[in-house]
């Protein structure tokens, strides 16, 4: 038995003209946590999909436990002791924990014996790895952190010795993430090998033993985590030096530009998603809304930008009321000086099948500047796009290219250019850097602060707590649809983390 759990030799994979993995070599030692870091589109997910049998490599070998193997589908991966915890959980929502764990691993057509056997095995796993979860609870009733635990149990139940975790902390609160890290530590102590994929440098530093960096389909370096630094890793990821800290001067808040009072929003099923929320944004300040994804931030953004009808409450834009409970037309709000960078640029902020220049006018397409009567003024649209491409360094600089063919960072720049260049009074930004590469993050953060310094009122919603803390002048924390606290940006991560988990909030509300 060697002490190498997995070795990848010369893995190569192309999708049509896209060369996703170029001659990748990777060695993962047994009983370690091995981080794989890289920007979006660097090829991490492709590589792991090859290892887990979703794709076949065009060339190269996979060596598991000293012997060369072919992994032609996920079942083969499981047979070789490789388990995967996906970024988006692969659980049946209306099944119980037990049913999910045994799904696909039943012994026979008759379930009775499988169920009782699975129950015993699950109990054993829970004890051994301290992964308590009620086997009879329905998945849809469990919080996200526990759902993830079920995913881990699923892999362990299938006797996985090597666990691949794909961006596991994206949906977790800081305390939940800490808990996950403790679990991973225990698994490591029990001799399991863990491959941890992320784009967050902090997590790499916190729990991995070794880290491999990918850039544009290539494996550029492997380091001992102890011997490297965040700066070095960031540089390896991007290929140049990056400024990780955001430089910003003192805020100079002026008059209130945007004010929300007692806003309540329900979703399609009638569940209250935003519960009696009030806040103000002044000219020249950035107000950050922190919170774990799914605590009403999305619905709040949609309601104040006129996309979703609110149940009750008032919103004032430049002192004038916005009809958020009735017909607040997003187009009309734009002309009144409200710009909105939506959270989901793929489905909301952009039409991916459009050419870049066509997306440059989305929402502003009624502007006379882009029209000749009822006809589009294609020349003006093109010129406008070219100007923005230059100013925002959008690459490739081709306004006729399909938007889907731009990288995440450049797509986000297309949205930002469109919304910022109008000189709006109020700018609402959701997840400005989600799925955006490190190089572009720097640029986007600078632009947001420039907007503030020009005297715009900025509302920033992000699930990245670091981002909220770096950019905001005031931080509002949302939990379960309510504002549970307001802090200045000096607040510690621990303090905000507790608020985000709803712990402090309940106390404050009780007082």
């Amino acid at each position: 038995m060697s002490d190498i759990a997995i070795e990848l030799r010369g893995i190569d994979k192309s999708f049509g003209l896209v060369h996703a993995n170029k001659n990748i070599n990777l060695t993962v030692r047994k009983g370690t946590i091995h981080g794989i870091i890289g920007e979006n589109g660097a090829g991490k997910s492709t590589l792991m999909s090859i290892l887990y049998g979703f794709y076949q490599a065009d060339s190269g070998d996979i060596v598991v436990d000293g012997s060369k193997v072919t992994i032609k589908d996920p079942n083969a991966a499981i047979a070789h002791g490789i388990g995967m915890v996906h970024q988006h959980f692969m659980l049946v929502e209306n099944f119980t924990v037990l049913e999910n764990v045994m799904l696909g691993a039943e012994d026979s057509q008759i379930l009775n014996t499988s169920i009782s056997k699975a129950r015993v095995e699950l109990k054993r796993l829970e004890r051994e790895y301290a992964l308590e979860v009620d086997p009879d609870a329905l998945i849809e009733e469990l919080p996200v952190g526990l759902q993830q635990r079920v995913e881990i149990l699923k892999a362990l139940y299938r006797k996985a010795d090597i666990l691949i975790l794909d961006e596991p902390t994206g949906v977790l609160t800081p305390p939940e993430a800490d808990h996950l890290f403790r679990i991973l530590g225990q698994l490591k102590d029990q001799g399991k090998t863990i491959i941890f994929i992320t784009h967050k440098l902090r997590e790499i530093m916190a729990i991995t033993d070794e880290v491999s960096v990918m850039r544009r389909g290539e494996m550029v370096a492997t380091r001992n985590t102890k011997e490297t630094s965040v700066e070095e890793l960031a540089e390896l990821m991007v290929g140049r030096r990056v400024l990780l800290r955001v430089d910003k001067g003192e805020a100079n808040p002026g008059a209130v530009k945007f004010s929300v009072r007692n806003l309540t929003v329900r979703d399609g099923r009638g569940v209250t998603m935003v519960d009696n929320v009030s806040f103000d944004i002044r000219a020249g300040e950035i107000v950050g809304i922190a919170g774990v994804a799914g605590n009403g931030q999305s619905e709040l953004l949609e309601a104040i930008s006129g996309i979703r009808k609110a149940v009750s409450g008032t919103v004032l834009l430049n002192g004038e009321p916005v009809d958020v409970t009735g017909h607040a037309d997003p187009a009309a709000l734009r002309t009144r000086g409200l710009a909105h960078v939506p959270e989901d640029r793929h489905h909301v902020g952009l039409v991916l099948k459009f050419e870049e220049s066509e997306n440059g006018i989305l929402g502003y397409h009624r502007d006379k500047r882009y029209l000749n009567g009822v006809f589009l003024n294609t020349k003006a649209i093109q010129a406008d796009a070219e100007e923005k491409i230059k100013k925002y360094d959008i690459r490739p600089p081709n306004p006729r290219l399909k938007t889907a063919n731009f990288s995440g960072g450049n797509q986000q720049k297309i949205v930002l250019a469109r919304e910022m260049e109008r000189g709006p009074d109020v700018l609402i930004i959701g997840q400005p850097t989600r799925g955006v590469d490190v190089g572009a993050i720097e640029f986007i953060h600078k632009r947001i602060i420039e907007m503030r310094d020009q005297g715009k009122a900025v509302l920033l919603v992000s699930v990245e707590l670091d981002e909220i803390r770096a950019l905001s002048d005031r931080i509002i924390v949302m939990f379960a649809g309510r504002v549970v606290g307001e802090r200045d940006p000096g607040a510690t991560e621990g303090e905000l983390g507790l608020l985000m988990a709803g712990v402090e909030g309940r106390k404050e509300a009780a007082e």
Partner: protein
Amino acid sequence: MSNPYAKLPAWAEYGLIPLVNLVVAFLVAGLVVLLVGENPLNAAYHMINGAFGRGEYIGFTLYYATTFIFTGLSVAVAFHAGLFNIGSEGQAYIGGIGVALACLWLDKTMPWFIVLPVAIIGSAGFGALWAFLPGWLQAKRGSHIVITTIMFNFIASSIMVYLLTKVMKPLGSMATQTRTFEAGGQLPKLDWLLSIFGLNVGNAPFNVSFLLALVAAFGVWVLIWRTRFGYEMRTMGHSPSAARYAGISETRITIIVMMISGGLAGMMALNPIMGEQFRMQLDFVQGAGFVGIAVALMGRSHPAGIIPAAILFGMLYQGGAEIAFEMPSISRDMIVIIQGLVILFAGALENMFRPAIGRAFAAIGSRATAAAQTRGA
């Protein structure tokens, strides 16, 4: 990876892939002919010769193509807004009322070029009206357009039976049709157009509405790609959530697009009623609305693709009739099978050969770059 198959050059995307699909469709169709015990090459000869062999045959092919251009455009317009209008059949049928009323009213007193504009407005208006109801139901009530338009095809059919047996039939006649129109209700043939190429149109009902179809195709292109409304409907078609974000009213777009789609379908009625029969008969649409779906699919919902696709289907109709005539063991139903195969390969199995062609291009592309690199070094 979200987009595993990289973009192909335009000529491969719009030329090579449809061609490969078509060739495979004909190969499989050839097998079917072989199964019946006939020579597929013979059949192919009769098909091509029957569609293009003489001026008259070409005239028939283009006559059918005219019909399919209208219904293809109808389906394509709706498709760009994300609406699957299966009701072109019924809309074309009801559109016939508009043509018939215009002709019955004016044919004795006015020349055809006065009657035609009135008939255009009538046919488009009645077609649009028939599409307005499903559009309104979808926009305001959420009734799915695929279901409602199918239902409306049946309703249209029943209405026409009623009208042609009780209302629009001349007194004392036993045929389910209107009276025959006088000169004002008869569109002139385009014999001069074919004679430019030294062809004789003969008995083929190839008429002025073909030119109207070409104008409509250009109009649809302008509408979709060059107007604000076209921009809005494409936004909604690609991403309803982005449309909401941009402040585009889904209700408004749905209703207007359906009316445009229905109007185009309705205009199809000009061709058989004013161009061939000179009267409105029962079931004059003959499935052209459904063929329009295939034409739109094959033409990639682009007017520049719809016109050749419509001519292809015109060829299948006209050439198919010739095969049935020349080769008695191949019945009309066999022709429908061949048409079905074309639809299957060109429409439903559109992505079957794409991965392979994409890989071939990638291989050629990487070899080219490798060659360039060795040359550079």
